[in-house]
């Protein structure tokens, strides 16, 4: 099996950030909650490999903990999307053409009609800014995406002979969806999950930029960007580093998603003549 180069790069970048986030759970070089004004805006050195910010906090530690919050939010949001969206999609495909299908699809259309980030801002502003509310706000918009992908994949499988064989064996739609359909659409879900993960990172960064994500003292890449705005001429490093972190993480996830799609998506598999 030829592993595409882009996928290896994407996997490496993603793994790097995941590793950083996991390590930050047990150890960071410096405490991110401690302010040390005396050490503010230091250039990179041995003690602070990426320098310090305007409050004297170590940039490297901030990035590490920020990675943790971004990944946590995006991951749980994808989890919500999968947990709610996949069963809905399977249900809609099993009852294709009936009122359940219509209901699920029109519900999807309804959610799609709203601009995701604006509504997420609305939700977090109304219910109070916090990481949890950010997760819920982003998660809601993942549900119709997974429902649509699942339904599309499931519909093309329902017509196959082995599903008919399962019906002849007396199995009902629920059982068939769980035993036959779901394992065969996992490919599509994995690829979509990677893509939604990267979108979740971006959404979380956007929400914390406007102050509605994880609250201080928990660092977040988006908020680091917002705080660095005023110092863009004096200490560009403060904005560049979180920005680069976001870009690299999303790039890695996109490359991984594309690479996985090339490998896993049966429609794209090159057929040997």
């Amino acid at each position, binding site marked *: 099996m030829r592993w595409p180069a882009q996928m290896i790069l994407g996997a490496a970048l993603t793994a790097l950030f995941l590793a950083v986030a996991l390590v930050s759970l047990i150890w960071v070089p410096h405490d991110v909650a401690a302010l040390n004004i005396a050490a503010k805006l230091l250039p990179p050195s041995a003690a602070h490999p990426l320098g310090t910010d305007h409050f004297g906090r170590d940039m490297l530690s901030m990035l590490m903990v920020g990675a943790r919050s971004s990944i946590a939010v995006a991951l749980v949001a994808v989890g919500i999307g999968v947990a709610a969206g996949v069963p809905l999609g399977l249900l809609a495909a099993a009852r294709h053409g009936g009122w359940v299908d219509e209901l699920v699809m029109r519900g999807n259309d309804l959610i799609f009609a709203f601009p995701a980030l604006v509504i997420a801002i609305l939700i977090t502003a109304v219910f109070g800014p916090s990481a949890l509310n950010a997760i819920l706000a982003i998660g809601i918009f993942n549900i119709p995406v997974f429902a649509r992908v699942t339904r599309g994949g499931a519909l093309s499988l329902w017509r*196959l*002979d*082995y599903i*008919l*064989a*399962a*019906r*002849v*064996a*007396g*199995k*009902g739609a629920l059982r068939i969806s769980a*035993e*036959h359909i779901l*394992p*065969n659409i996992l490919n599509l879900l994995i690829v979509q999950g990677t893509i939604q993960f990267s979108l979740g990172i971006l959404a979380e960064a956007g929400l914390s930029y406007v102050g509605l994500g994880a609250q201080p003292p928990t660092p977040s890449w988006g908020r680091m960007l917002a705080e660095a705005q005023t110092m863009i001429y004096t200490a560009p490093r403060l904005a560049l580093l979180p920005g680069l972190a976001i870009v690299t993480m999303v790039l890695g996830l996109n490359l991984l998603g594309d690479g996985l799609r090339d490998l896993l998506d049966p429609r794209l598999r090159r057929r*040997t*003549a």
Partner: protein
Amino acid sequence: MIEMQNLSLEIHGQPILRDVSFDLRPGEVFGLVGESGSGKSMTALALMRLLPHGSRLSGLATIDGADLTALSEAEMCDLRGNRIGMIFQEPMTALNPVQTIGAQVAETLRIHCGTPRAEARARAVEVLARVGLPEERFGLDRYPHQLSGGQRQRVCIAMAIALRPALLIADEPTTALDVTTQAQILDLLKRLVAEDGMALMLITHDLAVVAGMADHLAVMQKGEIVESGLTGAVLGEMRHPYTRALFEASGHRPDPPPAPQEKAPLLELRQVTRDYPAARRGLFRRPAPFRAVSDVSFTLRRGESLGLVGESGCGKSTLTRAILGLEELQGGEIRLDGEKVAAGQHMPAHMRRKMQVVFQDPYGSFNPRWRVGRLVAEPFHLTGWPEDTEGRVAEALEAVGLQARDAAKYIHEFSGGQRQRIAIARALITRPEMIVLDEAVSALDVRVRAQILDLLADLRARFGLSYLFISHDLSVVRAITDRVLVMRAGRIVERGGTEAVFADPQHAYTRELIAAAPVLPAHWPQGRTGDAGALV
């Protein structure tokens, strides 16, 4: 004159073709016969230089002296569609679904001759009329999905012959078509060969088709031509054992099992009718429903093998699903062993257990993620899982000629014929009384088909099974059934003992079907070497 000399092909180091040599003469039909995997399609693709990545072609292929293997891609593009045309097996996937048929036929003209649009359209009308699609009935603005399979294949042929090529390659052109349509397409090809004086290379696995069409014949096995020559000579003498094996398998009939003793009916259908609601046209108008099955009645007795013959669209699949309890009926009733068959999942398990099914496509009939053991044991959902599931699975696999340890493998490790055996094992596992075989051998090669028919006959004798054998292939139905029903447009038009119906068909449609089916004569007159077309 197109010549191939010692053509050899390797793909990623694997030898695919070895020293293939033959000639194609203008005005003559050349038949290339072989089973799947023999390399016959690859030969055609090698001639057209449409090979996949990693291919290495050696040898010589010349068209009127010009060496095809040495031409650049641009020069080959000039030739394809212009001097060499090709038609494929699946007409629906060979046509662009979003372009009209007129546009697709005109495209060939516009690419090669730079013909302006209006003139190309006019010539497209002429070409389509030549292939039997006159403009009055088939406007140029039709889309492929609005045509039937045979009509689509005619459009593909029109595209291929629009520029009167020197060679037309037909790769299994009629395999996906019904018997009567097949006869028409083959007649069309013969007529075009005679009118244009072009060479036709007909690739097929069906000896009967090639016997009726080809002047010269070559038999391919594993990438090599094992026998070739004039059709009459090859099929009359059959020097190579492989040719003989193919010939015998084509006409193979398993030994008939002893006549069923019981006369008790197992399956009874009385005036079964199934309608599909037609699509709504306007907001308030709903046209009359489409009647897929109309007033069908028949009885299947225990131990009997009943054939159901019909072309595509006649309603046999709908009828199959209704018998299996998967479709509702708008009229009539179906009784299995005296009990009424209710539609939907509410059919009681003890009834479902008595009826099992084997499908046509060995590649789509199984969940690719499950192991064989689990696949074969799936019908136990109906009867409850027995104590020794593994033992029963092993028993079923051995009954179909496989081994108990195959239960641990995945389905992709098996060939088409082996998969059909696994499908039969799956059908046997609940010890049913009746098996519905829905085109179960249509997708198999000739020799594998003969083996599966033998297996089915053997199982019927051993376990006292009844079969409902649905097929469009008359020769298969003749080989394995006791009685036959002929279905057309949702109705049964003829019924009777298989041999009686075939020997003396009463209904005009049955006669049409039997006349259209290509026949491979059992004995070829020895010594007649020049007379290929007259023996059908």
